[in-house]
């Protein structure tokens, strides 16, 4: 009997990607608070190297990287597999994590009393836990292993929300935990039903099963809504704005840019890799309707917010919506290969550019709150005069969110719009256009305040070092810079798709 998975060279890199942050978190516990920051920064640097090496190995070999843990083949063992999309996610995660680490170091360093205090120490440990969970979600092939990864993600993300220990952030964190737990319970029940029907939890083995009974449909109907609660798609987004707006700036950047992408990635895998074509088409349609509702409703909500961080949080829910309208646009479930379509590339670019732009935007909002002492949009008149680099960051990140050329967001939305026009999805095309206009509305509302001339000039509460302002600026420039390499992701995203083992039996 030939093994289900053949390990490839470089597969060990996937283990490193998962284990490095976990080892760093353990080292922090052993070495104590005084060394936490140093350990975190070393781990972040090493993690960037691992992500880079994974990408190079993938491009050089041209096939997906596979590692079979302990050489135990599925169905009993667990396999790790990284195709082009997974490696792209690993790379984006490493970049945003590294930027967040540098940002947090500067931000906590502003106040010498707290720079090595409990808040900072907890932040670094939780950040490492988050990173390990994220990487595992992107590479694991086993549905139960993915459940554990999702729970690790929740347990690291919820305390990050309430790091400052105020009553309102406690309530936001608890609400987040309730939604996330309910989501994972549904996911777990679905995974159990799939095991009962197929006798395996391995994604490749389930997908290669010849026929699918009602268990598949029921399991998907449990797992996808469960994951939607974690991804905060409308109407399950209620927990996100208070949670992401209440977290410390460095934490909101990671939560908004990366953490909600993990359940989205998993939904994508369920719909594209596991679901039979008929179920995939239905799921794709439903997800697209919810995605479109998310774009419209939450963009309007973002326009109406009084506080800067709440506005950015609502914008996150709106931008996540774009990832769900990809399903019908890429023709999921109609027999063609979705990863060859322009909508697939558009979705991947949207994912990347949103991660970079939203991290930059939350960091900029954090600098504003730190320097001025509040984030009420109405009273921010003229903050562009005292914090010019931060206002520039906000504007550049906003370009990408709105989809104005040249930016990664523009290419992404342009590709999605083209796909909608070619496919005859008029309502989706109109939604994309309306979402762009609304995003323009809320970004310009802030830029208008930034460039206003206030009656009394704003005073900075404390000086902001240049390095702190430069980190989000670099992320925002990267988000815009994605617009200049539109053709690079095409090839990368196709590597490892379709899964060769499924095509040639």
């Amino acid at each position, binding site marked *: 009997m030939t093994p289900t998975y053949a390990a490839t060279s470089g597969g060990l890199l996937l283990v490193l990607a998962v284990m490095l942050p976990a080892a760093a978190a353990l080292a922090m516990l052993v070495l104590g608070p005084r060394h936490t920051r140093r350990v975190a920064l070393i781990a972040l640097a090493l993690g960037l190297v691992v992500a880079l090496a994974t990408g190079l190995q993938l491009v050089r070999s041209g096939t997906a990287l596979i590692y079979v843990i302990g050489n135990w083949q599925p*169905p*009993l063992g667990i396999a790790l597999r990284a195709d082009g999309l997974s490696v792209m996610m690993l790379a984006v995660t490493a970049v945003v994590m590294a930027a967040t680490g540098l940002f947090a170091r500067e931000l906590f360093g502003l106040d010498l009393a707290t720079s090595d205090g409990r808040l900072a120490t907890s932040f670094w440990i939780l950040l490492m836990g988050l990173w390990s969970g994220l990487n595992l979600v992107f590479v694991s092939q086993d549905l*139960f292993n993915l*459940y*554990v990864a999702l*729970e690790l993600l*929740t*347990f690291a993300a*919820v*305390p990050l929300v*309430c790091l400052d*220990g*105020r*009553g309102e952030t*406690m*309530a936001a*964190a*608890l*609400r987040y*935990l*309730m939604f996330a*737990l*309910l989501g994972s*319970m549904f996911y*777990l*029940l679905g995974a*159990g*039903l799939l*095991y*009962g029907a197929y*006798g395996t*939890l391995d994604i490749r083995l389930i997908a290669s099963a010849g026929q699918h009974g009602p268990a598949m449909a029921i399991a998907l109907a449990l797992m996808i809504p469960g994951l939607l609660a974690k991804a905060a798609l409308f109407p399950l987004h*209620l927990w996100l704005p208070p949670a992401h707006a209440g977290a410390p700036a460095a934490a909101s950047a990671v939560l908004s840019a990366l953490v909600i992408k993990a359940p989205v990635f998993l939904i994508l895998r369920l719909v594209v890799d596991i679901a039979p074509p008929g179920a995939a088409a239905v799921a794709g349609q439903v997800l697209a309707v919810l995605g479109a509702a998310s774009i419209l409703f939450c963009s309007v909500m973002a326009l109406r917010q009084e506080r800067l961080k709440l506005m950015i949080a609502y914008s996150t829910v709106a931008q996540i919506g774009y990832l769900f309208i990809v399903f019908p646009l890429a023709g999921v479930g109609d027999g063609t290969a979705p990863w060859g379509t322009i909508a697939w590339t558009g979705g991947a670019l949207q994912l990347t550019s949103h991660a970079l732009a939203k991290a930059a935007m939350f960091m900029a909002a954090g600098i504003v709150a730190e320097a001025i002492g509040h984030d009420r949009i109405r009273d921010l008149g003229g903050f562009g005069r005292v914090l010019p680099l931060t206002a520039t960051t906000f504007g550049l990140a906003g370009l990408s969110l709105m989809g104005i050329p040249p930016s990664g967001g523009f290419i992404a939305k342009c590709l999605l719009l083209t796909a909608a026009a070619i496919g005859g999805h008029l309502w989706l095309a109109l939604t994309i256009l309306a979402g762009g206009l609304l995003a323009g509305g809320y970004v310009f509302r802030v830029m208008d305040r930034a460039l206003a001339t206030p009656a009394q000039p704003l005073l900075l509460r404390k000086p902001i070092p240049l390095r702190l302002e430069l980190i989000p600026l670099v992320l925002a420039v990267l988000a815009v810079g994605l617009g200049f390499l539109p053709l690079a992701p095409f090839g990368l995203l196709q590597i490892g798709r379709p899964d060769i083992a499924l095509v040639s039996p």
Partner: protein
Amino acid sequence: MSAMALTSASLFGLCGAALVGIGLFCIVSHPDLLRRIIGFNILGAGIFLVFGAVARRGAAMELGGDPVPQAMVITGIVVAFAATALAIALLRRLASLTGSATFEAPAAPPRSEP
């Protein structure tokens, strides 16, 4: 389904489904957060019972029971324990800060959360 077909595995499965229903009802109908946390535990117990039924059915050939779902249940119990501990810790902190164990403002009359 006739009475003959009601094997112990199906019985476990049905009990699990009932527990899932009770847990869900508990979570959506009570504004009191402690009750919701208990609801999550009942829901979790129901899911683990379904896993047990799956293990029994999967091993119909010769083994006494399929070990994989049992391993998953053990992991699941650990995760559920950690989740409950985290939720209780947050709830205690919330109660000591606001004097209320719900999402409502302390003075507001109780109404159900979505």
